[in-house]
């Protein structure tokens, strides 16, 4: 059992985990200050005979300080986040050389279409094979309801909406086997709508592609 984020499996994992940790530090400081403050006040100012509370209605300087600090922090966080957001999801973020794979979702399976070596595309069920170190763009479409394309190790998630053509991209960095899950409730078989993800080296990918295209054409 890992008590931390999953393996960093794509180029997005670095910046997203970095942002996660930055937010964890900022919120961690706020959390510790508030909770320790509360505990301190509970002990220090508990009612005792003969004590009387300090009569005050507030302090404008304190209000200005604790309004400004969160405001500045949040705006800064927004700017940094937006920088990465535009890189990952922005309208023009998909690299021009990205390798296209079609992902068609239906209750409750994934139909994944690859460009075959002979120019004819072919479809495989519930198996997503991608080459390592190369941007991949998945063209997402749905047969019926809303599904969601989610590979935790890639830190990629994108809803698949019927009637819309949506693209998402990523670049895998570590060869291995992962899982693609549906992360939007799509009906009673939602929980078993999964596919295996294989990240290959380019040579292994080419070999698989050739073999799979052959099998598909038979």
């Amino acid at each position: 059992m890992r008590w931390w984020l999953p393996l960093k499996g794509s180029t997005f994992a670095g910046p997203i985990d970095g942002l996660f940790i930055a937010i964890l530090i900022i919120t961690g400081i706020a959390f510790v200050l508030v909770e320790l403050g509360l505990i301190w006040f509970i002990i220090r100012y508990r009612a005792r005979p003969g004590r009387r509370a300090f009569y005050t209605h507030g302090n404008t300087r304190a209000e200005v300080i604790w309004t400004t600090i969160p405001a500045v922090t949040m705006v800064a966080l927004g700017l940094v986040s937006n920088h990465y957001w535009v890189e990952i999801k922005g309208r023009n973020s998909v690299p021009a050389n990205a390798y296209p794979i079609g992902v068609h979702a239906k209750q409750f399976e994934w139909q994944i279409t690859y460009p075959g070596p002979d120019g004819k595309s072919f479809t495989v069920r519930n198996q997503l094979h991608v080459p390592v170190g190369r941007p991949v763009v998945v063209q997402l479409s749905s047969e019926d309801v809303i599904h969601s394309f989610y590979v935790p190790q890639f830190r990629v998630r994108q809803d698949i909406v019927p009637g819309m053509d949506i693209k998402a991209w990523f670049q895998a960095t570590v060869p291995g086997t992962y899982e693609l899950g549906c992360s939007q409730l799509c009906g009673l078989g939602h929980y078993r709508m999964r596919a295996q993800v294989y990240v290959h080296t380019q040579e292994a990918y080419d070999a698989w592609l050739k073999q799979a295209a052959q099998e598909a054409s038979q």
Partner: protein
Amino acid sequence: MTTVAATAHTAAAHHDDRSFVRKYIFSTDHKIIGIQFLFVSLFFLVVGGLLAMQMRWQLAFPGQPMPGGGILPETMAPGGVILPEYYIQLVTMHGTFMVFFAIMPLLVGVYANFLIPLKIGTHDMAFPRINMWSFWSFFAGGLVMLASLFVPDGAARAGWTMYAPLSARHDYSGASLGQELWSVSIIFVGLSSILGSLNYITTIINNRAPGMTWFRLPLSVWSLFVTAILGLLALPVLSGAAIMLLFDQILQTHFFDPPAGGQALLWQHLFWFFGHPEVYILILPAMGMVSDIIANGSRKPIFGYHSMVFAIVAIAFLGWIVWGHHMFVSGMNPTLGSSFMVSTLIIAVPSAVKTFNWMGTMWRGNLRFHVPMLHAIAFVAMFVIGGLSGIFMAATPVDMFIHDTYFIVAHLHYVLFGGSLFALFGAITYWYPKMFGRLMSEPWGKVHFWLTFIFYNCTFFPMHILGMAGEMRRIYDPSQYTFLQPYQPMRVFISISAFLLFASQLIFFVNFWWSLWKGKPAPQNPWDDNGLEWSLPSPAPHGNWDRVPSVYRGPYEFSSPQVAEDYLPQHKKLPTDREPAVTSAPSH
């Protein structure tokens, strides 16, 4: 208006000669209506909890027969083993009951009704009959929703957010009547909230006692006022969307059905345009009541009263321009994601202001740890966690990773249970004597508080870890995924904590019922508070005051140097006080 007030006056002054039905069932008395809401929504709180327990059983012990599950029909749990189609009904109905039939009516239905007239100093609501209809419309909606659990193909199955087209077409969801009853029920709930809201707004604007200026209103009333404005503007959107969904379901219209030219994302925009203000409907009244209780428990004026009011208004205003943060990965234009991220992050500012002002109120106070105060402090401590975890999801790139995982489940329960429900336990205990004339047991209240606080954290905190691991929500059997299998011991831990959390609530319910008949008779002002409601006997009589009191100061004059005792009620006239001019009060 004057007739109502005059009738109320006579009734209060002499004996109450209404029939039993007029007095307790089709009552127009705001306090009785509040108590009706209290009983009904506590019942739905238990229903929602029971549904959650079944989910937790399945997650911890998948495929094993649930104790007592044998009574469920074959279509839900044959031999007590929960089926996937029943599991998603549990997911859907737990959320639906908790949001629409437990937390929302407990906060607004109960406390807007009960507190507003008592705290602003008037005899009843501006429109007592509309108020009665608000309750009965809610009750009808609740019955319809409850009935949907028992129809042949089961209850709604598309999550409480009811995303279309899964919810709109029966061949997708596998349920027909259950889905339709959901839509019908939500239309009733919408009507109930709209009727209630316009009543609360009108009453607060027009019927304040002499001297009760806007900036002498308790923060509970301010937050209920702003909440009512949110409700009046948001619920019509939900009702409209539910009507469209119902048309899709029974008339074969295609508002949300893409192959026929509809738009799937239209439902999400409509739902969340209601849904995000709804989130603040579910927390603002809690914040207001917690403010009242913390000032009382600290024996100090609220720190930065005006900042607190402005923060309530700011949260409510920002609440209208953040709905898109539920849709960052929905396929919505990513540029919109950027603007919704900024508006969402900005909400952290008024939330921080409120938190620091609660702490400022406790600073150098003379803290009395009565049961309501314990719950109010827990509210602050837990709301901070829920608020801070929201920042992770507000940051769009991080949201792409943790959206729709257990991280969001943890976050929303820290706000709605750690926040709203702790505030409600505090509020119920605090105003119980004014409702029923008796006090709830203090020692049992403390036992309930501590058990709830411990098991609540054991239940929901580990969900953050599951979310970081990438565990999706609404998954019937997480062991389908290899990467989620190692987390089974954590799921068992969470479920056992959840069972103990549920069991701890028995203490509260027994305390609640037992105290109705056997509780210690309550004095007029058991908490030494300043609010107008404490100038009435416990329980407060029908029509409240013979003559509404005049108000001389704000509601938080604790430990004022002007008096020897450490509280100074709003209605207590000191020799230096001038009689307020009668302006907005009803002629009486």
